[in-house]
């Protein structure tokens, strides 16, 4: 009999727990306020390109220069690459004769490996702007097939944080 009563009591307690009895605990929270976090900005902008001559009127063996100023307008210094693409009817698919980017100069420094790379400081820093010069050459071996053809130079400046 005693065992039965004990069992019933145990069952009752377990049932109460299972039914969702909750336990109160004391807690306290304290706050450290007004922490601030800011991220920088990284922006490169190109200025207006200037062609030294009419690039659409090239003749074999001639080199034209396109000058493009670039500026850093963000708050972070950056590294950038100059990627060039030539398209248009003048690109006949003849590797030896098609016009090509023959050289890139940045701030009067010849960049011997392409794509050219350089860096800029943040806006207001010591070196926030560059002048990028892109030399386009129509090889002297280009024949009459290139006469009257036109091409487009596309330049992309890809900037990454330092």
């Amino acid at each position, binding site marked *: 009999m005693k065992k039965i009563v004990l069992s019933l009591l145990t069952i009752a307690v377990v049932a109460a727990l299972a039914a969702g009895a909750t336990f109160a605990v004391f807690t*306290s929270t*304290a706050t450290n306020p007004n*922490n601030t*976090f*800011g991220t920088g900005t990284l922006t490169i902008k190109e200025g207006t390109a200037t062609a030294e001559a009419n690039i659409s009127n090239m003749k074999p063996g001639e080199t034209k220069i396109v000058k493009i100023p670039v500026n850093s307008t963000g708050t972070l210094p950056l590294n950038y690459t100059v990627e060039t693409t030539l398209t248009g009817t003048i690109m006949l698919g003849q590797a030896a004769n098609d016009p090509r980017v023959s050289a890139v100069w940045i701030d009067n420094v010849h960049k011997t490996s392409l794509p050219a790379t350089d860096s800029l400081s943040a806006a207001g820093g010591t070196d926030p702007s560059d002048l990028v010069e892109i030399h386009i050459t129509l090889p002297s071996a280009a024949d009459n097939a290139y006469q009257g053809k036109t091409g487009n130079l596309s330049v992309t400046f890809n900037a990454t944080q330092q």
Partner: protein
Amino acid sequence: MRTKRTKLLSLGLLLLTSCLLIGGAIFTFALFTGSAASGANAFAAGTLKLDVQNDGTGANFPLFVATTDGELKPGRALPGRTLKVLNVGTLPFKLSGLNAALYNDPQTAADDRVLAQGLWVKVFELEASNPTNKLFIWEGRMSDLAVADGVSVAGIQTVYPPSITPTPTVKEISLLIEISMPSDTLTPLADHNGDGFRDDNDYQGLKLRADLGVTGQQLIP
């Protein structure tokens, strides 16, 4: 014989119980009663109260200040800061939760709270007897801390109230909080707009304000 006696007893008990349950509306009982009071028994609940202080500057100045810490960018980690957690109540506790309330900067047009998805937070308890020993508590994005009730953590050291003397002596602990803007692939900046691409550039130029909270809980006996 024994069975019959047991049955009779059971029936008797059942009848008595039924009478009691069916209620006072039908049966009334006259009983002599007496009572005695033991006066002046006093009960008082303890208080659980914690306080925090900037371990570097004292008082409760913010741990992280953008104007002096400088700008964040992927790959930059801010120097770790310590937050002192003090027991100013009468009950011992352990750390049980962390939370953050996030606010936009009124000077920026963007939703600065997005930045919380790009900040990785690591929290350690510094061992009271050997503060160079970092006891790991939690790590995750700051945005995880901003959900309702924050995150639960299992504090390691018990922080005793100041009234307990002379031992145990741990009456305050220091939390080391490290915050970085990750650039690695393990903890990439979150794709917060869900377009399937990393949105690293979306984190540019943001100014987030965060209130960092810690919760302590009484020891469960």
